[in-house]
């Protein structure tokens, strides 16, 4: 029946992996290749009073030193608000300020030490709940709160009437849930090899997970037409979402253009851990009304997403989170208010289900607490409130194919839980007055 299910199917690239012949970007080597190192801001927030790279430019073995003034268009990322090389104000520790291309790593590090820079350290804001307060240090000139559609503090979902829902409830259950930041830590750190080829195209061996995203984004940074910018992808030594953001392609490309030589820019493990994009922290507050029979009558959710200093993929995560935070439950009275706040930390990237799994952690723990409150099992509350095919989800889309109940039945069987007879007879088929009574 199936060609592959239950069978051992060798990977197409497996032989290369087990023989060590797979070529990763960090294995790409070219004649005359230069090494790139960057000067990173040592403060969470600072004003660059002055920067002088003249001595670094004459340092032995140095081919180029670049700052913001050498970047054709100094903004990048999916929401292009992130500076390739810092402007006057730096907004997170480790932000790139200047970059060197030199004949060796030692020569590049020597040159970095010769950059004369004067900082004024500024007061940062690190805690997202502090950052939303009036009078908090400003991460960005336009304020710390992201304004959705340019005017709203929150991304909102409204369904039914929560006040009516709470009146119908026998119990009110409130919970606060937080998730910390998390680094992808791919085993191969981020790496780029960039060079200008014979016909004059800028060629970038990239670890990007989305080559075309990066190509379009960086054509703008380099101010090159797409037909002069060639991206080469391939096998990457782990991404987990982290390589949806650009960490090295932009700077390596600029230095290849500046020097006419191949340039390699690889992050150290320390740089990858401390300064690349991460899964950023979230804070969830959920307030539920529930009847004695286990039906959730109302839910109010407030979300605070700590986006770090630049938007990167934070907005995308907020949208996904808001759409799914109420879970696989039919809740007729719902309010979701999601906020996104900027803090002086590394920006919010994508990471494995970004926005979704953090919310589901909160939602699933809350469901268990609801079950405990009304004295039913964690399984039962999920059966009672499950979506069925044909239901409208919380953003108003009709659900065409639902399998919550079947999944729960399978989970119960696999984990050795005995379900009451009636739940074994349920299915996710569209509800009619004769089935799944009580809803």
């Amino acid at each position, binding site marked *: 029946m199936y060609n592959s299910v239950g069978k051992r199917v060798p990977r197409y690239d497996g032989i290369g*992996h087990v023989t060590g012949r797979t070529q990763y970007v960090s*294995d790409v080597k070219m004649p005359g290749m230069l090494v790139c190192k960057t000067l990173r801001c040592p403060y969470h927030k600072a004003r660059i009073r002055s920067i002088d790279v003249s001595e670094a430019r004459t340092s032995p073995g140095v081919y180029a030193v670049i700052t913001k003034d050498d970047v054709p268009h100094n903004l990048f990322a999916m929401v292009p608000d992130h500076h390739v090389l810092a402007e006057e104000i730096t907004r997170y520790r480790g932000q790139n300020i200047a970059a060197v291309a030199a004949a060796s790593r030692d020569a590049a590090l020597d040159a970095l030490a010769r950059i004369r820079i004067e900082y004024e350290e500024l007061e940062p804001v690190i805690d997202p709940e502090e950052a939303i307060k009036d009078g908090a240090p400003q991460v960005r000139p336009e304020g710390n709160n992201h304004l959705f559609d340019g005017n709203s503090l929150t991304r909102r979902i409204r369904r039914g009437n929560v006040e009516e829902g709470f009146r119908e409830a026998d119990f009110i259950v409130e919970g606060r849930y937080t998730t910390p930041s998390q680094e*992808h830590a791919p*085993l191969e750190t981020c790496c780029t090899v960039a060079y200008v080829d014979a016909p004059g195209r800028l060629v970038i061996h990239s670890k990007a997970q989305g080559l075309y995203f990066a190509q379009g984004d960086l054509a703008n940074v380099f101010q090159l037409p797409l037909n002069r910018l060639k991206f080469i992808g391939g096998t990457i030594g782990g991404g987990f979402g982290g390589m949806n953001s650009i960490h090295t392609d932009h700077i390596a490309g600029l230095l290849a253009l500046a020097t006419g030589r191949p340039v390699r820019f690889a992050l150290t493990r320390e740089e990858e851990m401390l300064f690349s994009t991460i899964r950023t922290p979230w804070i969830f507050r959920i307030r539920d009304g529930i009847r004695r029979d286990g039906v959730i009558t109302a839910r109010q959710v407030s979300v605070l997403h700590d986006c770090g200093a630049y938007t990167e993929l934070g907005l995308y995560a907020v949208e996904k989170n808001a759409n799914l935070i109420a879970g696989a439950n039919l809740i007729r009275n719902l309010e979701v208010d999601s906020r996104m706040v900027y803090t002086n930390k590394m920006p919010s990237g994508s990471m494995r289900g970004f926005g979704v799994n953090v919310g589901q952690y909160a939602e699933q723990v809350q469901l268990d607490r609801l079950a405990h409150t009304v004295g039913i099992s964690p399984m039962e509350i999920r059966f009672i409130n499950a979506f069925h095919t044909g239901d409208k989800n919380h953003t108003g889309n009709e659900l065409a194919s639902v399998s919550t109940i079947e999944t729960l039945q399978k989970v119960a069987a696999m984990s050795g839980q005995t379900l009451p007879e009636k739940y074994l007879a349920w299915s996710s088929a569209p509800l009619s007055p004769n089935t799944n009574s009580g809803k």
Partner: protein
Amino acid sequence: MSQILRFHLNGNPAEVMAGEAETLLDTLREGLGLTSPKCGCNRGDCGACTVILNGNAVKSCTVLALTVEGKSVWTVDGLVDGERAGEPEGGESPAPRSLSGHKLHPVQTAFHEYGAPQCGYCTPGMVMAAVAFLDRNPSPTEEEVKDALSGNLCRCGGYKKYVQAVMAAARGEFDPLPERSGRNV
């Protein structure tokens, strides 16, 4: 200051210039152009750079190159091209072969057949850690295998299959384990 370093690499004499602060990993990758040992952390934490030095699995980023003078170093390249080099056997053998047609070490075959590598970046180090371990202990318990691979990180999370594959290689599921050969010379 650089000096000439002479050692045995995958069974053959090797000669290369190496600086006194240079690691064996850098010498292999930069000086000799062997990119199979990977750099994941450059501080001995991740195991992606594991090679076999005089019979022991070591993290080559923590070994100063000049200290291997006269010693024997094996990388994953040596498993197919050195020790096991030769024309492919005739017939329709189902055993997987290297890209150059050579027979694989049973550990490599097992890793491939069990689908242990995902991104593959940790794999050459995993292979060398497993080969060095089976050279010493060809009939291990699962706990011993886990212990032997505990210095090698896999961020894709493929540990279970790596352990299963080493056990399969040990019980000769694909090919019998070869003699310890010259790796501990």
